[in-house]
Protein backbone atom coordinates (compact mmCIF):
# COMPACT_ATOMS: atom_id res chain seq x y z
CA UNK A 1 0.00 0.00 0.00
CA UNK A 2 1.17 3.53 -0.80
CA UNK A 3 1.42 5.96 2.09
CA UNK A 4 -0.45 9.23 2.43
CA UNK A 5 2.81 11.18 2.34
CA UNK A 6 2.89 10.57 -1.39
CA UNK A 7 2.60 14.17 -2.39
CA UNK A 8 2.73 15.13 -6.05
CA UNK A 9 2.60 18.26 -8.15
CA UNK A 10 0.22 16.44 -10.41
CA UNK A 11 -1.82 13.25 -10.44
CA UNK A 12 -3.10 12.16 -13.83
CA UNK A 13 -6.17 9.97 -13.65
CA UNK A 14 -6.41 7.74 -16.69
CA UNK A 15 -3.67 5.87 -18.55
CA UNK A 16 -4.90 6.03 -22.12
CA UNK A 17 -3.47 8.26 -24.85
CA UNK A 18 -4.47 11.49 -23.06
CA UNK A 19 -3.09 10.43 -19.67
CA UNK A 20 0.16 9.00 -21.01
CA UNK A 21 0.55 11.93 -23.42
CA UNK A 22 0.14 14.33 -20.49
CA UNK A 23 2.71 12.33 -18.52
CA UNK A 24 5.34 12.59 -21.26
CA UNK A 25 5.03 16.38 -21.23
CA UNK A 26 4.84 16.52 -17.41
CA UNK A 27 8.14 14.60 -17.22
CA UNK A 28 9.79 17.01 -19.60
CA UNK A 29 8.49 19.91 -17.48
CA UNK A 30 9.97 18.14 -14.41
CA UNK A 31 6.60 18.00 -12.66
CA UNK A 32 6.57 15.38 -9.91
CA UNK A 33 3.64 13.31 -11.06
CA UNK A 34 1.86 9.99 -10.98
CA UNK A 35 -0.42 8.30 -13.52
CA UNK A 36 -3.22 6.08 -12.19
CA UNK A 37 -5.47 4.18 -14.58
CA UNK A 38 -7.60 1.07 -14.41
CA UNK A 39 -6.57 0.00 -17.91
CA UNK A 40 -3.08 0.92 -19.09
CA UNK A 41 -3.54 2.05 -22.67
CA UNK A 42 -7.25 2.74 -22.30
CA UNK A 43 -9.81 1.80 -24.93
CA UNK A 44 -7.13 1.69 -27.62
CA UNK A 45 -5.85 -1.69 -26.38
CA UNK A 46 -9.04 -3.22 -27.79
CA UNK A 47 -8.49 -1.87 -31.31
CA UNK A 48 -7.15 -4.50 -33.70
CA UNK A 49 -5.42 -2.06 -36.05
CA UNK A 50 -4.80 1.67 -35.81
CA UNK A 51 -4.25 3.21 -39.23
CA UNK A 52 -4.41 6.93 -38.50
CA UNK A 53 -1.61 7.47 -35.98
CA UNK A 54 1.11 9.45 -37.74
CA UNK A 55 4.30 7.50 -38.22
CA UNK A 56 2.66 4.06 -38.07
CA UNK A 57 0.95 2.86 -41.24
CA UNK A 58 -0.87 0.11 -39.39
CA UNK A 59 -0.28 -0.98 -35.82
CA UNK A 60 -2.27 -3.07 -33.29
CA UNK A 61 -3.79 -0.83 -30.59
CA UNK A 62 -2.13 -2.77 -27.79
CA UNK A 63 1.31 -2.43 -29.42
CA UNK A 64 0.89 1.32 -29.87
CA UNK A 65 -0.14 1.77 -26.26
CA UNK A 66 2.75 -0.37 -25.03
CA UNK A 67 4.99 2.14 -26.80
CA UNK A 68 3.23 5.06 -25.10
CA UNK A 69 3.55 3.32 -21.71
CA UNK A 70 7.21 2.56 -22.32
CA UNK A 71 7.87 6.15 -23.39
CA UNK A 72 6.18 7.58 -20.27
CA UNK A 73 8.10 5.26 -17.94
CA UNK A 74 11.34 5.82 -19.78
CA UNK A 75 11.04 9.51 -18.88
CA UNK A 76 10.64 8.56 -15.23
CA UNK A 77 6.88 8.54 -14.75
CA UNK A 78 5.31 6.24 -12.23
CA UNK A 79 2.28 4.51 -13.76
CA UNK A 80 -0.02 2.59 -11.44
CA UNK A 81 -2.80 0.27 -12.49
CA UNK A 82 -5.67 0.80 -10.06
CA UNK A 83 -9.26 1.98 -9.83
CA UNK A 84 -9.65 5.53 -8.56
CA UNK A 85 -12.71 5.72 -6.34
CA UNK A 86 -12.72 9.46 -5.78
CA UNK A 87 -10.97 12.80 -5.74
CA UNK A 88 -11.62 15.30 -2.96
CA UNK A 89 -10.52 18.91 -2.82
CA UNK A 90 -8.85 19.97 0.45
CA UNK A 91 -6.80 22.89 1.78
CA UNK A 92 -3.54 21.71 0.15
CA UNK A 93 -4.98 20.58 -3.15
CA UNK A 94 -6.53 17.23 -3.78
CA UNK A 95 -6.69 13.81 -2.19
CA UNK A 96 -7.00 10.93 -4.60
CA UNK A 97 -8.29 7.59 -3.29
CA UNK A 98 -7.46 4.46 -5.26
CA UNK A 99 -7.31 0.70 -4.72
CA UNK A 100 -3.58 1.10 -4.32
CA UNK A 101 -3.71 3.82 -1.65
CA UNK A 102 -4.24 7.54 -1.14
CA UNK A 103 -2.26 10.26 -2.86
CA UNK A 104 -2.17 14.03 -2.58
CA UNK A 105 -1.60 16.44 -5.43
CA UNK A 106 -1.53 20.16 -6.10
CA UNK A 107 -3.29 19.61 -9.42
CA UNK A 108 -5.17 16.90 -11.27
CA UNK A 109 -5.60 16.03 -14.92
CA UNK A 110 -8.74 14.01 -15.59
CA UNK A 111 -8.06 11.78 -18.59
CA UNK A 112 -11.01 9.52 -17.87
CA UNK A 113 -11.89 8.36 -21.37
CA UNK A 114 -15.11 6.74 -22.43
CA UNK A 115 -17.00 3.62 -21.49
CA UNK A 116 -19.01 1.46 -23.89
CA UNK A 117 -22.65 2.37 -24.27
CA UNK A 118 -25.16 -0.40 -23.83
CA UNK A 119 -28.15 -1.00 -26.08
CA UNK A 120 -30.44 -1.82 -23.14
CA UNK A 121 -32.41 -4.48 -24.98
CA UNK A 122 -33.69 -7.80 -23.62
CA UNK A 123 -30.96 -10.45 -23.68
CA UNK A 124 -28.02 -8.01 -23.60
CA UNK A 125 -27.10 -8.53 -19.92
CA UNK A 126 -28.30 -12.12 -19.75
CA UNK A 127 -25.99 -13.28 -22.54
CA UNK A 128 -22.89 -11.23 -21.65
CA UNK A 129 -20.03 -13.68 -22.04
CA UNK A 130 -22.42 -16.15 -23.66
CA UNK A 131 -22.41 -14.63 -27.12
CA UNK A 132 -22.81 -10.93 -26.32
CA UNK A 133 -19.49 -9.09 -26.49
CA UNK A 134 -18.20 -5.52 -26.41
CA UNK A 135 -14.69 -6.46 -27.61
CA UNK A 136 -14.31 -7.97 -31.07
CA UNK A 137 -10.52 -8.29 -30.87
CA UNK A 138 -10.86 -10.26 -27.61
CA UNK A 139 -13.63 -12.60 -28.64
CA UNK A 140 -13.61 -12.98 -32.44
CA UNK A 141 -11.81 -16.33 -32.31
CA UNK A 142 -14.63 -17.96 -30.33
CA UNK A 143 -16.83 -17.50 -33.39
CA UNK A 144 -14.83 -19.45 -35.94
CA UNK A 145 -17.14 -20.58 -38.78
CA UNK A 146 -20.15 -19.08 -37.00
CA UNK A 147 -22.56 -16.31 -37.90
CA UNK A 148 -22.25 -13.06 -35.98
CA UNK A 149 -23.94 -9.68 -35.90
CA UNK A 150 -22.20 -6.37 -35.21
CA UNK A 151 -24.42 -3.49 -34.12
CA UNK A 152 -23.25 0.07 -34.69
CA UNK A 153 -22.59 2.69 -37.33
CA UNK A 154 -19.18 4.13 -36.44
CA UNK A 155 -15.50 3.26 -36.93
CA UNK A 156 -15.51 0.82 -34.01
CA UNK A 157 -18.37 -1.16 -35.57
CA UNK A 158 -16.71 -1.13 -38.99
CA UNK A 159 -13.35 -2.36 -37.70
CA UNK A 160 -15.04 -4.98 -35.52
CA UNK A 161 -16.91 -6.33 -38.55
CA UNK A 162 -13.75 -6.41 -40.67
CA UNK A 163 -11.80 -8.17 -37.90
CA UNK A 164 -14.57 -10.73 -37.37
CA UNK A 165 -14.44 -11.84 -41.03
CA UNK A 166 -11.09 -13.46 -40.26
CA UNK A 167 -12.98 -16.03 -38.16
CA UNK A 168 -16.73 -15.98 -38.72
CA UNK A 169 -18.39 -17.38 -41.84
CA UNK A 170 -20.86 -14.49 -42.03
CA UNK A 171 -20.92 -11.03 -40.47
CA UNK A 172 -24.09 -8.94 -40.40
CA UNK A 173 -23.43 -5.27 -39.72
CA UNK A 174 -26.55 -3.51 -38.48
CA UNK A 175 -26.73 0.25 -38.15
CA UNK A 176 -29.50 2.60 -37.19
CA UNK A 177 -30.06 6.12 -38.53
CA UNK A 178 -26.77 6.65 -40.34
CA UNK A 179 -23.33 5.18 -40.67
CA UNK A 180 -20.42 7.56 -40.18
CA UNK A 181 -17.40 5.28 -40.45
CA UNK A 182 -14.40 6.65 -42.35
CA UNK A 183 -14.87 6.15 -46.11
CA UNK A 184 -11.75 3.95 -46.19
CA UNK A 185 -13.42 1.51 -43.78
CA UNK A 186 -16.61 1.77 -45.85
CA UNK A 187 -14.68 0.59 -48.89
CA UNK A 188 -13.23 -2.41 -47.02
CA UNK A 189 -16.72 -3.33 -45.77
CA UNK A 190 -18.20 -3.17 -49.26
CA UNK A 191 -15.44 -5.29 -50.78
CA UNK A 192 -15.66 -8.05 -48.18
CA UNK A 193 -17.96 -10.84 -49.38
CA UNK A 194 -18.61 -12.12 -45.83
CA UNK A 195 -20.13 -8.82 -44.70
CA UNK A 196 -23.80 -7.93 -45.18
CA UNK A 197 -24.75 -4.40 -44.18
CA UNK A 198 -28.30 -3.95 -42.88
CA UNK A 199 -29.97 -0.59 -42.25
CA UNK A 200 -32.47 -1.03 -39.44
CA UNK A 201 -34.60 1.17 -37.23
CA UNK A 202 -33.61 -0.60 -34.01
CA UNK A 203 -32.66 -3.83 -32.25
CA UNK A 204 -35.62 -5.39 -30.44
CA UNK A 205 -34.10 -8.38 -28.68
CA UNK A 206 -31.16 -10.75 -28.46
CA UNK A 207 -32.44 -14.32 -28.61
CA UNK A 208 -31.14 -17.49 -27.01
CA UNK A 209 -31.53 -20.18 -24.41
CA UNK A 210 -28.20 -20.90 -22.66
CA UNK A 211 -26.34 -18.75 -25.17
CA UNK A 212 -27.07 -16.41 -28.05
CA UNK A 213 -28.90 -17.94 -31.02
CA UNK A 214 -30.09 -14.85 -32.86
CA UNK A 215 -31.27 -11.29 -32.90
CA UNK A 216 -34.49 -9.49 -33.74
CA UNK A 217 -34.29 -6.13 -35.50
CA UNK A 218 -36.89 -3.70 -36.76
CA UNK A 219 -36.94 -1.95 -40.08
CA UNK A 220 -39.45 -0.01 -42.17
CA UNK A 221 -41.03 -3.27 -43.36
CA UNK A 222 -41.44 -4.87 -39.93
CA UNK A 223 -39.57 -7.18 -37.57
CA UNK A 224 -36.89 -9.54 -38.79
CA UNK A 225 -34.99 -12.35 -37.14
CA UNK A 226 -31.34 -13.11 -37.86
CA UNK A 227 -29.59 -16.36 -37.09
CA UNK A 228 -26.36 -15.46 -35.20
CA UNK A 229 -24.31 -17.05 -32.44
CA UNK A 230 -22.55 -13.84 -31.52
CA UNK A 231 -23.67 -10.24 -31.09
CA UNK A 232 -20.95 -7.59 -30.92
CA UNK A 233 -22.20 -4.30 -29.57
CA UNK A 234 -20.39 -1.20 -30.83
CA UNK A 235 -23.06 1.47 -30.40
CA UNK A 236 -20.68 4.10 -29.15
CA UNK A 237 -19.39 5.27 -25.85
CA UNK A 238 -20.23 7.74 -23.14
CA UNK A 239 -17.82 9.82 -21.02
CA UNK A 240 -16.61 8.12 -17.83
CA UNK A 241 -17.22 11.33 -15.93
CA UNK A 242 -18.40 10.20 -12.48
CA UNK A 243 -15.20 11.28 -10.72
CA UNK A 244 -15.41 14.69 -12.41
CA UNK A 245 -19.04 15.15 -11.46
CA UNK A 246 -18.34 14.39 -7.79
CA UNK A 247 -15.58 17.01 -7.80
CA UNK A 248 -18.02 19.66 -8.99
CA UNK A 249 -16.59 19.81 -12.49
CA UNK A 250 -19.00 21.18 -15.07
CA UNK A 251 -20.31 18.69 -17.64
CA UNK A 252 -22.26 19.46 -20.81
CA UNK A 253 -25.66 17.94 -21.63
CA UNK A 254 -24.03 14.74 -22.94
CA UNK A 255 -21.81 14.44 -19.82
CA UNK A 256 -18.61 15.61 -21.49
CA UNK A 257 -16.24 17.57 -19.24
CA UNK A 258 -16.32 21.23 -20.23
CA UNK A 259 -12.81 22.59 -20.86
CA UNK A 260 -11.35 25.79 -22.28
CA UNK A 261 -8.45 26.01 -24.71
CA UNK A 262 -5.95 25.51 -21.88
CA UNK A 263 -7.81 22.28 -20.91
CA UNK A 264 -8.88 23.92 -17.65
CA UNK A 265 -12.19 22.93 -16.07
CA UNK A 266 -14.34 25.24 -13.93
CA UNK A 267 -12.58 23.90 -10.79
CA UNK A 268 -9.21 25.55 -10.14
CA UNK A 269 -6.23 23.24 -10.67
CA UNK A 270 -8.41 20.55 -12.24
CA UNK A 271 -7.70 19.99 -15.93
CA UNK A 272 -9.16 17.44 -18.30
CA UNK A 273 -7.94 15.84 -21.52
CA UNK A 274 -8.97 13.27 -24.07
CA UNK A 275 -12.20 11.77 -25.31
CA UNK A 276 -14.22 12.69 -22.20
CA UNK A 277 -13.85 16.45 -22.76
CA UNK A 278 -15.59 19.00 -24.94
CA UNK A 279 -12.19 19.83 -26.49
CA UNK A 280 -10.92 19.24 -30.04
CA UNK A 281 -14.42 19.60 -31.47
CA UNK A 282 -15.17 16.24 -29.73
CA UNK A 283 -13.21 14.54 -32.49
CA UNK A 284 -12.19 11.76 -30.08
CA UNK A 285 -9.11 10.44 -31.84
CA UNK A 286 -5.82 9.22 -30.36
CA UNK A 287 -4.03 12.18 -31.90
CA UNK A 288 -6.41 14.72 -30.33
CA UNK A 289 -6.33 12.95 -26.94
CA UNK A 290 -2.53 13.10 -26.86
CA UNK A 291 -2.61 16.73 -27.89
CA UNK A 292 -5.09 17.64 -25.15
CA UNK A 293 -2.93 15.79 -22.62
CA UNK A 294 0.12 17.77 -23.74
CA UNK A 295 -1.77 21.08 -23.52
CA UNK A 296 -3.09 20.18 -20.05
CA UNK A 297 0.41 19.33 -18.77
CA UNK A 298 1.67 22.61 -20.21
CA UNK A 299 -1.09 24.48 -18.37
CA UNK A 300 -0.20 22.76 -15.07
CA UNK A 301 3.44 23.74 -15.58
CA UNK A 302 2.59 27.39 -16.26
CA UNK A 303 0.34 27.55 -13.20
CA UNK A 304 2.54 25.69 -10.68
CA UNK A 305 6.03 26.68 -11.80
CA UNK A 306 5.62 29.99 -13.59
CA UNK A 307 2.58 31.28 -11.66
CA UNK A 308 0.63 32.28 -14.74
Amino acid at each position, binding site marked *: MEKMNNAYDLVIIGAGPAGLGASIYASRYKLKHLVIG*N*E*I*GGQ*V*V*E*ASEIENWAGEISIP*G*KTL*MDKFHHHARHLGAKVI*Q*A*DVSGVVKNADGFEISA*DSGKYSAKSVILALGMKPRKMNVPGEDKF*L*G*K*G*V*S*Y*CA*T*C*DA*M*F*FRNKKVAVVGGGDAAATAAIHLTEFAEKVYLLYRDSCDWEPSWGEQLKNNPKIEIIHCSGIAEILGD*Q*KVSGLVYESSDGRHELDAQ*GVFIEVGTTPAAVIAQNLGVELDAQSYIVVNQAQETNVENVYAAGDATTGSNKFRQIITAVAEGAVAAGSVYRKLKLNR
Partner: protein
Amino acid sequence: MSMEFTDQNFDQEVIRSEHPALVDFWAPWCGPCLAMSPIIDELAKDMNGGIKVGKLNVDENPQTAQKYGIMSIPAFKIFKNGQVIREFVGMQSIDALRKEINKII
Protein backbone atom coordinates in the same frame (compact mmCIF):
# COMPACT_ATOMS: atom_id res chain seq x y z
CA MET B 1 3.40 -15.26 -9.40
CA SER B 2 0.16 -16.89 -10.39
CA MET B 3 0.00 -20.52 -11.56
CA GLU B 4 -0.40 -21.67 -15.13
CA PHE B 5 -3.36 -23.98 -15.69
CA THR B 6 -3.51 -26.15 -18.82
CA ASP B 7 -5.73 -28.80 -20.40
CA GLN B 8 -3.30 -31.34 -18.91
CA ASN B 9 -3.20 -30.12 -15.31
CA PHE B 10 -6.69 -28.61 -14.95
CA ASP B 11 -8.27 -31.69 -13.41
CA GLN B 12 -5.47 -32.13 -10.90
CA GLU B 13 -4.88 -28.46 -10.03
CA VAL B 14 -8.42 -27.04 -10.19
CA ILE B 15 -11.15 -29.69 -10.21
CA ARG B 16 -9.61 -31.98 -7.59
CA SER B 17 -7.88 -29.21 -5.68
CA GLU B 18 -8.20 -29.14 -1.92
CA HIS B 19 -8.38 -25.32 -1.99
CA PRO B 20 -10.70 -23.16 -4.10
CA ALA B 21 -9.16 -21.87 -7.34
CA LEU B 22 -9.58 -18.65 -9.32
CA VAL B 23 -9.00 -19.19 -13.03
CA ASP B 24 -8.29 -16.30 -15.38
CA PHE B 25 -9.18 -17.34 -18.96
CA TRP B 26 -7.09 -15.19 -21.28
CA ALA B 27 -5.37 -14.99 -24.68
CA PRO B 28 -2.37 -13.05 -25.93
CA TRP B 29 -4.34 -11.08 -28.56
CA CYS B 30 -6.79 -9.72 -25.99
CA GLY B 31 -5.69 -6.27 -24.79
CA PRO B 32 -7.87 -6.19 -21.65
CA CYS B 33 -6.58 -9.68 -20.73
CA LEU B 34 -2.99 -8.43 -20.88
CA ALA B 35 -3.99 -5.42 -18.80
CA MET B 36 -5.45 -7.83 -16.18
CA SER B 37 -2.33 -10.01 -16.09
CA PRO B 38 -0.36 -8.04 -13.46
CA ILE B 39 -3.53 -7.73 -11.35
CA ILE B 40 -3.86 -11.52 -11.26
CA ASP B 41 -0.18 -11.88 -10.34
CA GLU B 42 -0.60 -9.40 -7.51
CA LEU B 43 -3.71 -11.19 -6.30
CA ALA B 44 -1.83 -14.51 -6.26
CA LYS B 45 0.86 -12.90 -4.11
CA ASP B 46 -1.75 -11.38 -1.77
CA MET B 47 -3.76 -14.51 -1.26
CA ASN B 48 -0.82 -16.41 0.04
CA GLY B 49 -2.21 -19.92 -0.23
CA GLY B 50 -5.90 -19.70 0.84
CA ILE B 51 -6.91 -19.98 -2.78
CA LYS B 52 -5.04 -21.01 -5.90
CA VAL B 53 -4.83 -18.20 -8.42
CA GLY B 54 -3.86 -18.98 -11.97
CA LYS B 55 -4.24 -18.30 -15.68
CA LEU B 56 -5.37 -20.49 -18.53
CA ASN B 57 -4.41 -19.49 -22.07
CA VAL B 58 -7.54 -20.31 -24.10
CA ASP B 59 -5.58 -20.45 -27.35
CA GLU B 60 -3.25 -23.16 -26.10
CA ASN B 61 -5.85 -24.97 -24.00
CA PRO B 62 -9.00 -25.08 -26.12
CA GLN B 63 -10.53 -28.16 -24.43
CA THR B 64 -10.92 -26.53 -21.04
CA ALA B 65 -12.04 -23.23 -22.55
CA GLN B 66 -14.68 -25.03 -24.58
CA LYS B 67 -15.81 -27.21 -21.69
CA TYR B 68 -16.58 -24.11 -19.64
CA GLY B 69 -18.26 -22.34 -22.56
CA ILE B 70 -15.84 -19.45 -22.74
CA MET B 71 -17.07 -17.01 -25.42
CA SER B 72 -15.73 -13.75 -24.05
CA ILE B 73 -12.44 -12.93 -22.37
CA PRO B 74 -11.07 -11.97 -19.96
CA ALA B 75 -13.31 -14.36 -18.00
CA PHE B 76 -12.80 -15.34 -14.38
CA LYS B 77 -14.25 -18.38 -12.66
CA ILE B 78 -13.88 -19.44 -9.05
CA PHE B 79 -13.98 -23.21 -8.54
CA LYS B 80 -14.69 -24.97 -5.27
CA ASN B 81 -14.99 -28.73 -4.92
CA GLY B 82 -14.88 -29.06 -8.69
CA GLN B 83 -17.79 -26.68 -9.29
CA VAL B 84 -17.92 -23.12 -10.63
CA ILE B 85 -19.30 -21.05 -7.75
CA ARG B 86 -18.67 -17.52 -9.07
CA GLU B 87 -17.96 -16.12 -12.51
CA PHE B 88 -17.25 -12.71 -14.05
CA VAL B 89 -16.63 -11.42 -17.56
CA GLY B 90 -14.48 -8.43 -18.56
CA MET B 91 -12.03 -6.20 -16.69
CA GLN B 92 -12.25 -6.45 -12.90
CA SER B 93 -10.53 -4.40 -10.24
CA ILE B 94 -8.27 -6.16 -7.75
CA ASP B 95 -10.56 -5.01 -4.95
CA ALA B 96 -13.63 -6.56 -6.55
CA LEU B 97 -11.84 -9.89 -6.99
CA ARG B 98 -10.44 -9.77 -3.46
CA LYS B 99 -13.93 -9.20 -2.05
CA GLU B 100 -15.36 -12.15 -3.97
CA ILE B 101 -12.54 -14.41 -2.82
CA ASN B 102 -12.90 -13.33 0.80
CA LYS B 103 -16.58 -14.33 0.69
CA ILE B 104 -15.67 -17.94 0.01
CA ILE B 105 -12.45 -18.67 1.88
